[in-house]
C-alpha cells in the first residue's frame, strides 16, 4: 500500500516549506518515524519523518524547491509496487496545488489527521463539509494509508462555526442574487459581511442588518450627541454605557494595525533634537513670502526624505521573499480626520522644495478630511511620519504601516535647559521616536539613519549641501 508523502505543517504559521535536504535517496528503505528530509519553514529548519514503511520509491521535489502544505513530495511503497498512477496524479497535482489549499496536517507522533472543508461536486453543502469535519483516508490501522491525495479538490477554510466563509479577502463570495442586488444598491461591500445562510451564504437579512449599521453611522454630530441612550451597566455602580457600531474606517484601521503590531517585530529608537535652527529657518522663509506658510512638519518631511536617500536600507519594504529598496522617498503623512486617521503620501519628497511639500500636504490633508482622497494618494508610501506635537504630546511610539519598514513619531517642541560647553542654555527640544521593523532594519542601521536625520534637522543647511 503506497504512502504519498506530503509537505507537512511543521509550525502553526507555516504555509509552505522549502526542501532543504533529502536524508534518504530513491531506493532507500524507510520506516515509520524515521527522518527522511529536512525542511526549511518560516521559523527554522525541521526534520520531517516518514509516515509509512517501505522503500522511498520516488522523490518529487528537489532540494531547494518549495512546496505548499499538502503537496505530494515523495512516494513510499513496496519495491515492486506500481506507482505510476500516483506519480502522474502527484505531478498534475503540483500544478493544481498553486490554488488555495489549506490543511492542518500534524506531523509526527503516529499519524496525520486532515481537516478539509470540501465542496461536494453536486454543489450541495452538508453541515459536515461546511465545518470541515475530519476526513480520514482509507484507514485501517496502518499509518501508511492515511494521507489523502487532494490535488483535485478545491477547498475552503473551515472556521469554527462555519459561517465566516464568505468574509475575508480573496475568498469566493456566496451571495443570494437578491442580497447581491441589495448590497450593490446600498453601496455595501459584500466582503465585509458574514453570511448567515447555508455555506456562509449572504442573504437578505444580512444586508438588512448591515444597512441598519450603515444608517447608524451617518457622521452627524447632532445624532452622536443625542440619540443613543446610555444603557445601565450590569455591575452595580459601574458606568452607564452606550454601544456604537464601528464605522468602516475604524474597522479598517483596526484590521490594518492588527496586522502590523502583532506580526511585525517593532523596536523603537528615540532621539532628542535641537530644533532652534530649524525653527529659525522656518521663521525666515515665511518672512520672505506670507503666502508660503511652511510648518515645522514640512521641514521634518523634507529632512526625513533626505536622510532616507542617504540610508536606503531604511527606505525599504519586506516583500514575500525579498527586500524592496525604493529609489525615492514617498513620505506618508498621518492626518487625523473625523473618527479616524489616514496617511496621504507626498511622492519623491527629496526632490520637492519646502513650499511644494507645504502646499501638497495642505491640499492632501484637506481632501483627506473631506474624504476625497483617491486610493493611489494614500497607498504606497515608503516611510511614514506621525506628528502629535501640536496636540501637546512629548513623545510617543507609532505603529508601522505595513509594508513599510519604519515610522517616525514626532513630539512637541519645548524649550528646555541643556548643557552646552559646560554652560546651561535654553534650546527648543523635540523628541522623535522611530519604530523599526526588525526584519528589515537592524538596530545599528536605524540608529545611523536617526543620527543623519538629527544632524540635518539640527543644521538645515545640510539640505543644500
Amino acid at each position, binding site marked *: 500500500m503506497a504512502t504519498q508523502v506530503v509537505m507537512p505543517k511543521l509550525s502553526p504559521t507555516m504555509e509552505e516549506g522549502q526542501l532543504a535536504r533529502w536524508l534518504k535517496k530513491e531506493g532507500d528503505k524507510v520506516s515509520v518515524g524515521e527522518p527522511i528530509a529536512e525542511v526549511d519553514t518560516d521559523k527554522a529548519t525541521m526534520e520531517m519523518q516518514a509516515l509509512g514503511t517501505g522503500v522511498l520509491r520516488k522523490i518529487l521535489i528537489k532540494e531547494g524547491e518549495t512546496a505548499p502544505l499538502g503537496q505530494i513530495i515523495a512516494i513510499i511503497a513496496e519495491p515492486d509496487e506500481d506507482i505510476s498512477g500516483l506519480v502522474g496524479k502527484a505531478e498534475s497535482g503540483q500544478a493544481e496545488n498553486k490554488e488555495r489549499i489549506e490543511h492542518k496536517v500534524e506531523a509526527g507522533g503516529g499519524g496525520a489527521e486532515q481537516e478539509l472543508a470540501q465542496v461536494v461536486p453536486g454543489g450541495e453543502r452538508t453541515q459536515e463539509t461546511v465545518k470541515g469535519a475530519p476526513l480520514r483516508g482509507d484507514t485501517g490501522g496502518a499509518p501508511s494509508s492515511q494521507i489523502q491525495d487532494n490535488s483535485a479538490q478545491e477547498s475552503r477554510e473551515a472556521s469554527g462555526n462555519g459561517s465566516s466563509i464568505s468574509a475575508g479577502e480573496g475568498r469566493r463570495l456566496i451571495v*443570494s*442574487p*437578491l*442580497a*447581491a*442586488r441589495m448590497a450593490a444598491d446600498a453601496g455595501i461591500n459584500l466582503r465585509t459581511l458574514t453570511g*448567515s*445562510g*447555508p455555506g456562509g451564504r449572504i*442573504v*437578505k*437579512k444580512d444586508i438588512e442588518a448591515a444597512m441598519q449599521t450603515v444608517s447608524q453611522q451617518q457622521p452627524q454630530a447632532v445624532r452622536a450627541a443625542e440619540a443613543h441612550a446610555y444603557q445601565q451597566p450590569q455591575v452595580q455602580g459601574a458606568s452607564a454605557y452606550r454601544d456604537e457600531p464601528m464605522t468602516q474606517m475604524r474597522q479598517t484601521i483596526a484590521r490594518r494595525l492588527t496586522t502590523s503590531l502583532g506580526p511585525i517585530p517593532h523596536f523603537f529608537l528615540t532621539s532628542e533634537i535641537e530644533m532652534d535652527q530649524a525653527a529659525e529657518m522656518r521663521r525666515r522663509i515665511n518672512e520672505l513670502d506670507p503666502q508660503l506658510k511652511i510648518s515645522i512638519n514640512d521641514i521634518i518631511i523634507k529632512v526625513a526624505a533626505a536622510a532616507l536617500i542617504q540610508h536606503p536600507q531604511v527606505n525599504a519594504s519586506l516583500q514575500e521573499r525579498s527586500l524592496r529598496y525604493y529609489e525615492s522617498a514617498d513620505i506618508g503623512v498621518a492626518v487625523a480626520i473625523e473618527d479616524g486617521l489616514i496617511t496621504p503620501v507626498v511622492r519623491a519628497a527629496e526632490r520637492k522644495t519646502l513650499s511644494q511639500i507645504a502646499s501638497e500636504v495642505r491640499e492632501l490633508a484637506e481632501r483627506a478630511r473631506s474624504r476625497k482622497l483617491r486610493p493611489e494618494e494614500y497607498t504606497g508610501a515608503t516611510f511614514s511620519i506621525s506628528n502629535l506635537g501640536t496636540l501637546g504630546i512629548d513623545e510617543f511610539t507609532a505603529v508601522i504601516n505595513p509594508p513599510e519598514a519604519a515610522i517616525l513619531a514626532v513630539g512637541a517642541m519645548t524649550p528646555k535647559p541643556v548643557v552646552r560647553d559646560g554652560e546651561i542654555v535654553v534650546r527648543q527640544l523635540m523628541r522623535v521616536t522611530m519604530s523599526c521593523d526588525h526584519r528589515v532594519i537592524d538596530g545599528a542601521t536605524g540608529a545611523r539613519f536617526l543620527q543623519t536625520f538629527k544632524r540635518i534637522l539640527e543644521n538645515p543647511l545640510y539640505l543644500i549641501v
Partner: protein
Amino acid sequence: MREALNQALREEMNRDETVFLMGEEVAEYQGAYKVTKGLLEEFGDKRVIDSPITELGFAGLGVGAAMVGLRPVIEFMTFNFSILATDQIINSAAKMRYMSGGQFKIPIVFRGPNGSAFQVSSQHSQALESWYAYFPGLKVVMPSTPADAKGLLKSAIRDDNPVIFMEQERMYGNKGEVPDDEDFIIPLGVADVKREGKDATIIARSLTVPLALKAAEELEKQGVSCEVIDPRTIRPLDIETIINSVKKTNRVVIAEESHPFCGVGAELSAEIAERAFDFLDAPVRRLSGADVPMPYAKNLEKEAIPGVDKIVAAVREVAYLD
C-alpha cells in the same frame, strides 16, 4: 366538488346542444364517481354515451366527432387509463388544427381524476399533468375548489381547443361556495392567489392547494406570512402572477404530488430562475411526490406525498429560519 362539475356539465349541455358526454359508466351507472349523475335522464342516450373499455377507441371517436363539429366531453375513469389513448390525444387532438392549417378545430375536453387516490397503488395513482402539458396544442387545467372546478369546466367546454381537464378523486367530496350564475366562467390561463402573504410564495395545484393553505396557517402562527398561488391552468401558464409574487416575497416553495423529474415544478423553477433571478433570496424549493411508483401500503402512500409538515419545513428552510 362533484356537484359543481355536474352543474357545469348540465349547464353547458343545456346551453349548446352539440355538447355530448362519452366514457365508461357515465350513463347508466351515473358515473364511476357520480360526476355525471342524472345526466342520462335529462339529456338522453344520444348525448350521454356509455363506452366499452376502449380508451384509445373512444378517445379517437371523440376527436373525429370534434372534427365534424360536435363538442365532446370524454371521460377517462382515471387519467391512468388515458395512457392507452395518448396516441389519439397527442397525435390527433393536439396537432390536427396545426397540421390542417386551421381547417379543423378540435373543441374536445378530456376529463377525469388525476393523481393519487386511497391505496390504489402504482398503476392507478399517476399524476400526468406534465406529460400533457408538454405538447403544444393541448391545454391543461387543474381545479382545486368546487367554484374553480365549475368555472373552469365551463370555460374548457366553450374553448375550441383540446383541453385536458384533470380533477382529483380525493377532492370530489370537498365542499365550497359556488356561484349560481349560469354565466359564471373562469377564463383559462389565469392563476389565483388563494392566500396573500409577504414572506414566502407557495405554488400548489389540485391536491396540494388545501395542504398549502393549512401549512400557511401553521406558518402564520410561527410568524411567517405565506402567499399561496394556485395556477389553475397549467398550460397556458399564468407566469406573470407567479413572478409578481416571487418579486414580493423573494422565496418560493413548490408543492406537488407528481414526481419531481421533469414535472410542472421543474418548469416553474426554470421560469422563476429565468425571470426572477435577482429577486431570489434562496433557491427555489420543490416538494414533489416521491420518485417511486406509488406504494400500496397506507403509511408509505402517505409518505410519498408532500404533507403539511413538509411544506412548513420547506418554507422555513427557504426563509433561513432554522
